């Protein structure tokens, strides 16, 4: 896999965020489109002749993908009336394309005005909730803020009275991967107990969520070569029906082969658990190229984790070549 610079990753996230905001309220599934686009961009990066994807390389990829407005408006300009579920496609539409385009444009303007009108009330609502739960702070990314009430246990005690989520947007450097992007959603959840900043969440969308989803990042292995590295992260869970959360780390060779791997497979986190520290230790051989790590989830429920994970080294196990 290619290495992405922080600048390139940040640019990609900004681009995807713009697309998501423009798609919200439209007929397409904004989260699905953003994930598809993210995978398209990552795939383009994989096809690149460059080993490192930097800002310049990413700009070329995004140029081919199209500007956010172009991406978000594509289906609307076709005439939204063609997309009625169960509609009779054999009946030709008689309105000229210009009418459909005008209607779509009107819809966009209406949505924008409605958003502007609603925004102060949403902020007031959030402020009110904030006063009731001073430990929470306003989340970032007002466009897709969502509030959820999370109750815990039979006592009905509010574990996380009001948490504000930003769906589909992850901190810089982090991205969603796994075998199933349809049944799981990810994003940031605002500040939480025991976590240093905005928490990241992975949540099942379906009661029959299959496969797994992970939020992960990759870093160059250079500074860790020949050492033992310990990954430490804070995870909180509310999992049901055998759902599992696992901290994981993998050491990759230049050809992509795994030189080391631990995913807490024999000690997964299950059920409802408070924020707690977990760790994994692996040796980083001298030929290592990358370290990939993150949190994965299988089954149903929600997993939160602190993206401010620590990678600490201890003891030389191997001497880097040439030293």
């Amino acid at each position, binding site marked *: 896999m290619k290495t992405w610079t922080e600048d390139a990753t940040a640019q990609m996230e900004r681009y995807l965020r713009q697309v998501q905001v423009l798609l919200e309220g439209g007929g397409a599934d904004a989260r699905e489109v953003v994930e598809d686009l993210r995978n398209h961009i990552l795939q383009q990066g994989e096809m690149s002749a460059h080993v490192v994807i930097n800002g310049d390389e990413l700009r070329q990829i995004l140029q081919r993908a199209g500007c956010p407005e172009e991406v978000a408006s*594509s289906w609307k300009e076709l005439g939204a009336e063609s997309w009625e579920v169960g509609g009779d496609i054999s009946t030709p539409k008689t309105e000229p394309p210009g009418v459909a385009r005008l209607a779509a444009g009107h819809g966009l303007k209406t949505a924008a005005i409605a958003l502007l009108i609603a925004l102060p009330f949403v902020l007031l609502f959030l402020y009110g909730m904030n006063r009731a739960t001073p430990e929470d702070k306003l989340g970032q990314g007002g466009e897709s803020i969502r509030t959820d009430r999370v109750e815990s246990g039979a006592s009905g005690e509010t574990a996380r009275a009001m948490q504000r989520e930003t769906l589909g947007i992850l901190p810089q450097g982090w991205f969603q991967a796994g075998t199933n*992007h349809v049944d799981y959603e990810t994003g940031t959840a605002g500040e939480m107990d025991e976590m240093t900043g905005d928490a990241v969440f992975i949540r099942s969308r379906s009661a029959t969520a299959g496969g797994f989803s992970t939020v992960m990042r990759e870093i160059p292995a250079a500074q860790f070569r020949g050492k033992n590295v310990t990954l430490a992260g804070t995870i909180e869970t509310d999992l049901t029906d055998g759902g599992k959360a696992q901290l994981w780390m993998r050491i990759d060779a230049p050809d992509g082969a795994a030189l080391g791997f631990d995913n807490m497979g024999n000690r997964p986190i299950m059920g409802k658990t408070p924020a707690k520290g977990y760790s994994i230790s692996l040796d980083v051989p001298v030929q290592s190229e990358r370290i990939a790590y993150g949190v994965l989830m299988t089954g149903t429920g929600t997993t939160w984790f602190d993206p401010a994970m620590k990678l600490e080294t201890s003891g030389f196990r191997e001497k880097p070549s040439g030293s």
Partner: protein
Amino acid sequence: METPFNVDNWATQLRKGLLELCILNIVAQEEVYGYDLVKRLTELPGLGIAEGSIYPLLSRMRKVGLLRARLEESSTGPARKYYALTEDGRKCWQTMNRHWDGLAGGIQGLRNGGGKP
């Protein structure tokens, strides 16, 4: 060449109107990886569409039941999403192709001097 009629706008609308049919015609042949589908569409002469603008369409076509999608993990990059036609999608594809064939044939007939009483 400047004309009183905006041919560029007309061509843009024509291309966009045919995009769903192009997608259905590709997917009707075989299950196809989304990235490959996008690449084939953007390389189609005359279609001239940005790669990213196809994903909202695919999402819509999946939501209304024309396409189904499945994910497959890849060892060389992000998980791959494969698209296939649903039964409704296949009916839609056949109906749209009939419309296209009739229309294209009619226009060709007009160009050949047909259509006169």
